[in-house]
C-alpha cells in the first residue's frame, strides 16, 4: 500500500486579534509586535498525525471549531502548518465550497472552463468533458447565460458537476455529499459514491454521522485540535456520540 497523505505532528495557530491593526497601529506598536505574546494565538490543531493510504476513504468528525476545515486546508496546501509536516503525493480535487471560482457575470460555459482549469485540468481536457458536465448538471439552455441568472439550485448543480468530472485522484470533501432538489440529490450522491467506492482516495469532513458510517473505511474524531479517536467508523462514531450526549 502506498501512502497518499502523510500528516506528521502538525500544529497550526491563528492570531486571535479581533481587528487586524492598521498601518498606524503597526508603527506605533512596533516594539510590541517584535515580541508578540503567545496568549493572542488560537491553536486550531495541536499535534495531529495520521496517514491516508491509496483507495481509502477517511471520515473526519468533530464539533464545530474542532479543526476539521483547517485540516482540509492544510492538506490542500492553502494553509501552511505552524509546526510539523504535511506531504501529499497526488493531485488534489477540492470540494470545499461549490462554485468557489464562479463569477456571476460570466456564462455557465465560461465558468465551467475557468473552474475546470483551476481545479487541475488543461483547457483541452475541460473542452472534451464539457458536454458531459453540462448534461449531468441538467442546466441545458441556461449554460450560455450568466450564472447570476441561475437559481441557487442550478448554480450548485453546475458547480457539483464540474467538480466530479475532474478525474480526481484525491478528493477533499467538506460537507458536500448531495446538492439540488430530491431527484438531483439522489443522482449527485450516487455519482459521488460511485467515485469513492471505485477506489478513489477520499477525505471527507461531515456532520452526517450515518453517511460517515456508510461511506468511510476509517474515521477520525477531532476534538479541540487533538485526535480523540481513530479507527473503524462504527466505533469512532459511537465514541463521538457518547461524548456529545
Amino acid at each position, binding site marked *: 500500500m502506498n501512502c497518499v497523505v502523510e500528516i506528521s505532528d502538525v500544529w497550526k495557530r491563528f492570531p486571535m486579534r479581533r481587528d*487586524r491593526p492598521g498601518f*498606524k497601529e503597526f508603527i506605533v506598536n512596533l516594539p510590541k509586535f517584535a515580541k508578540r505574546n503567545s496568549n493572542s494565538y488560537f491553536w486550531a490543531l495541536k499535534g495531529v498525525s495520521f496517514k491516508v493510504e491509496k483507495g481509502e476513504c477517511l471520515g473526519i468528525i468533530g464539533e464545530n471549531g474542532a479543526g476539521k476545515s483547517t485540516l482540509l*486546508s492544510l492538506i490542500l496546501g*492553502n494553509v501552511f502548518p505552524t509546526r510539523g509536516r504535511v506531504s501529499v503525493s497526488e493531485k488534489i480535487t477540492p470540494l470545499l465550497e461549490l462554485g468557489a471560482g464562479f463569477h456571476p457575470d460570466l456564462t455557465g460555459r465560461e465558468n465551467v472552463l475557468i473552474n475546470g*482549469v483551476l481545479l487541475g485540468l488543461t483547457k483541452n481536457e475541460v473542452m472534451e468533458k464539457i458536454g458531459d458536465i453540462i448534461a449531468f448538471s441538467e442546466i441545458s439552455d441556461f449554460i450560455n447565460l450568466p450564472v447570476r441568472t441561475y437559481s441557487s439550485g442550478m448554480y450548485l448543480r453546475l458547480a457539483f458537476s464540474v467538480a466530479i468530472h475532474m478525474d480526481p485522484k484525491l478528493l477533499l470533501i467538506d460537507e458536500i455529499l448531495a446538492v439540488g432538489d430530491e431527484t438531483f440529490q439522489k443522482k449527485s450522491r450516487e455519482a459521488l459514491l460511485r467515485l469513492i467506492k471505485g477506489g478513489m482516495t477520499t477525505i471527507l469532513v461531515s456532520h452526517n454521522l450515518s453517511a460517515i458510517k456508510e461511506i468511510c473505511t476509517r474515521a477520525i474524531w477531532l476534538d479541540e485540535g487533538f485526535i480523540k479517536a481513530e479507527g473503524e467508523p462504527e466505533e469512532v462514531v459511537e465514541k463521538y456520540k457518547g461524548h456529545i450526549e
Partner: protein
Amino acid sequence: MEIGFNLNSREFRRKRDLLWLLTKKEVTLKYKRTFLGIFWSLLNPILLTLILFIAFKIFMRIQMENYTFFLLAALFPWNWFSASITMSTGALIGNVNLIKKIRFPRHFLILSTILGQFVNFIFALPIIIGFSYFYGKGPGINWFLSIPILMAIQFTVTIGICLAISMVNAYFRDMEYLIGVVVSMLFWMTPIIYPLNIVPEEYRTFLILNPLTYLITAWRDLFMSNAIDWGNIGISFGSSLIFLFCGIFIFQRLGKRLDEVI
C-alpha cells in the same frame, strides 16, 4: 513561484491555459455590461489627454509643438502602469474564495490583472502609430527592436510593484488608500505632462531618482522621434529587476501567512 522548464509538460500547458483564461476573464468582465465595451480603455486616456491639453496648452499656454502627441505618447504607457497598480491592489483580497478554497498559483491573479491592462495598451498602439505618421517621424525599424524591450521592462517593474502591494494590502488595508495618493503623486512627479528639461536644475534630482522617469521618457523618445536612448533603457531595466526581486521576496514571504489574515 516555480517556473516550468519543460514547455510541453501537462502542468506547463495547464498553467498557460489558466493564465490565458484569467486574463480573458479580466478583459471581458471589465466591460461586460457596458455599451462601449473595450473602447472605454481607449476613451479614458484620450479624454484625459483632452483635459490636459485644454488645461496646459490652451489655458496655461505651454510652449510646445505637438503637445497632444507629446501627452499621448506618455499617457498610454503610464495608463498601463497606473491601472495595473490600482487594480492589483485588491486582486488578492477580492478573491478570498478562490484563495481559500482552490489551490492554484496565487501570483496568477496579479499577472492576469497586468496582462488585462496590457491588452488595453496594445489597443492604443494604432492610435500612437497614427499620430506618429501625422506629427512625428513615422514608425521606423527602431520600433520593432525597442517596443518589445520596453514592454518587457515595464512588465518587470509593474509585476514587482503589484506583487508587493497586493500582498501587503492583505495585511494592511491602508495600502489601498495609500496607493491612491502615491499613484497620483507619481503622475505629477514623472515627466508625463511636461518634459524633463523644463524642470529647474535643482529639483531635477527628484525626478532622476524616480525610475519611471526613464521608462516613460524612453517610450516617448521612441514614439515621437524614433530614438533609442540605451542609457535610459539600461537604467529602467536595472531598476525594474530590483523591483521584481523585492516584489517576489515580499510576495513569497508574506504569502505563507496569507490564510491567517485574509
